[in-house]
């Protein structure tokens, strides 16, 4: 766990500072350069915290941007549906193929449906969905807002007395929060279905029996908390991507950097948040 966190911090620091030149020669020594990296690292967190607070405040202040919210829910949710379904389906097939051998070796082949269903609904489905959506949506938001920033569209919006944090950021963040649990459900269903298909191709079993065996003993505590934890992943994707996009500097190169950092950081934060959320779920939903 410690190693995991340590590695994550190193990767995070590298991600924040990637592509930024440090005038080490001018500064004289590498210690001062390292200090500048660390300062930038904490500065990022400070600015990100302030951005999150601003977005949270304006998101619940009328008038609400319902039309833009619906548009974003369509762009983020329904357009990510095939990707989430495919990722879930592939996970189901892989789980079936990989675990069949191991369970057969231990004489527990009858537990295969349970392993597939439990694994998908408790961990694989939510995490896989979070990661694939962070790739598609994080890149999309980072690039779109980055382009808007460098072409002065965000300034134009502000000059028109419209708050870009409300119109652009809050709508995207809320859409991500609302859509991630729904996409996770789709990924879970596709994974279970494809897990059954892979299973039945190896050794025929009816869908009803597969589901009965798989869901035997599954409670709402097994299903709901892991599904709804993806709302936190949605918040992470929306907030990180909007923040990186809206602070883009420079031209197309800056847009490229924002897009990359939006995907890298949101994926990384999802993995870190997962560690925390799994622990909390174990504590509060034993």
């Amino acid at each position, binding site marked *: 766990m410690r190693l995991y966190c340590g590695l994550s911090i190193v990767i995070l620091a590298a991600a924040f500072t990637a592509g930024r030149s440090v005038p080490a020669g001018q500064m004289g020594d590498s210690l001062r350069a390292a200090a500048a990296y660390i300062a930038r690292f904490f500065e990022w967190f400070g600015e990100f915290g302030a951005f999150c607070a601003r977005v949270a405040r304006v998101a619940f202040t009328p008038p609400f941007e319902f039309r833009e919210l619906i548009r974003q829910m369509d762009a983020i949710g329904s357009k990510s549906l095939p990707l989430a379904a495919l990722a879930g389906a592939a996970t189901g097939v892989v789980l079936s193929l990989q675990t069949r051998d191991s369970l057969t070796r231990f004489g527990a082949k009858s537990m295969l449906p349970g392993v597939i269903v439990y694994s998908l609904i408790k961990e694989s489905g939510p995490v896989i969905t979070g990661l694939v959506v962070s790739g598609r949506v994080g890149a999309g938001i980072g690039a779109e807002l980055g382009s808007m920033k460098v072409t002065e569209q965000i*300034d134009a919006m502000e000059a028109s*007395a*419209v708050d870009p944090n409300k119109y652009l950021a809050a709508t995207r963040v809320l859409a991500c929060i609302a859509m991630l649990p729904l996409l996770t459900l789709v990924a879970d269903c596709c994974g279970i279905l494809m897990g059954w298909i892979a299973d039945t191709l190896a050794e025929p079993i009816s869908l009803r029996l597969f589901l009965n065996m798989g869901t035997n003993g599954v409670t709402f505590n097994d299903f709901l908390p892991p599904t709804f934890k993806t709302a936190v992943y949605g918040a992470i994707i929306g907030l990180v991507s909007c923040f990186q996009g809206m602070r883009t500097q420079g031209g197309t190169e800056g847009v490229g950097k924002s897009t990359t950092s939006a995907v890298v950081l949101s994926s990384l934060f999802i993995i870190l948040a997962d560690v925390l959320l799994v622990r909390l779920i174990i504590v509060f939903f034993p």
Partner: protein
Amino acid sequence: MGTEDNSTPIEVKHLSKSFGTQKVLNGIDLSVARGETLAVLGRSGTGKSVLLKLLIGLQKPDAGSIRINGKEIADLDRKQLNEVRKTVGFLFQQAALYDSMTVEQNVEFPLSRHTEMSAEDLKKRARELLASVGMEKDLEKMPSEISGGMQKRVGLARAIALEPGIVLFDEPTAGLDPITGAEIGQLISQLKEKHQMASIVVTHDIHGAKQFSDRVVMLNEGNILVEGTFADLEKSKDKFVVQFLSNAA
């Protein structure tokens, strides 16, 4: 949305702004009266666009005072600043049209947020505004489907949508052919005649400035070198001004 009080629309005193060690504005003073157009001339990178962004609160000054319709910008919170922004139109250098919206939706955007118009009235008003800049035939086009000159026209229609008492133009003729540039200049003159707006036009276009401005200021190294009519500028013996005018001729 026009201003109703008798205060000077734009009043700037001792305005300074630096980026790192580079001083772009060094304690400048200027004011613009109602119905007056002030052209701001100068080399690239002398803080002309920064001046416009400071006026509308998109950037914060290091020192000095900016009063828009008598209100000190620095003292305002976000809500109050937005009220001031509603009285100021801004035409950006590259028009800055929202590229996910059609031409018509771009013009409707500020109206839909700051007026109580019905959907039908919004469309009607947006079409009137686009007709006034000669863009009534391209309502459904996306910004990427129209030329730079057309984008500036749409940007102009959007900037005046709320009938502001003040309009700021950032390089309105930059990157346009001479004919389209002259057309944009004529539009600015017509709008000034029609709405009696106070305007600041940041430009390199000497001929355009002569056509649509009442007064000019020449900026160099963060300072105002000359302020007066275009004739005053032409009479100036300052080496930089003489060189600027002779190279532009």
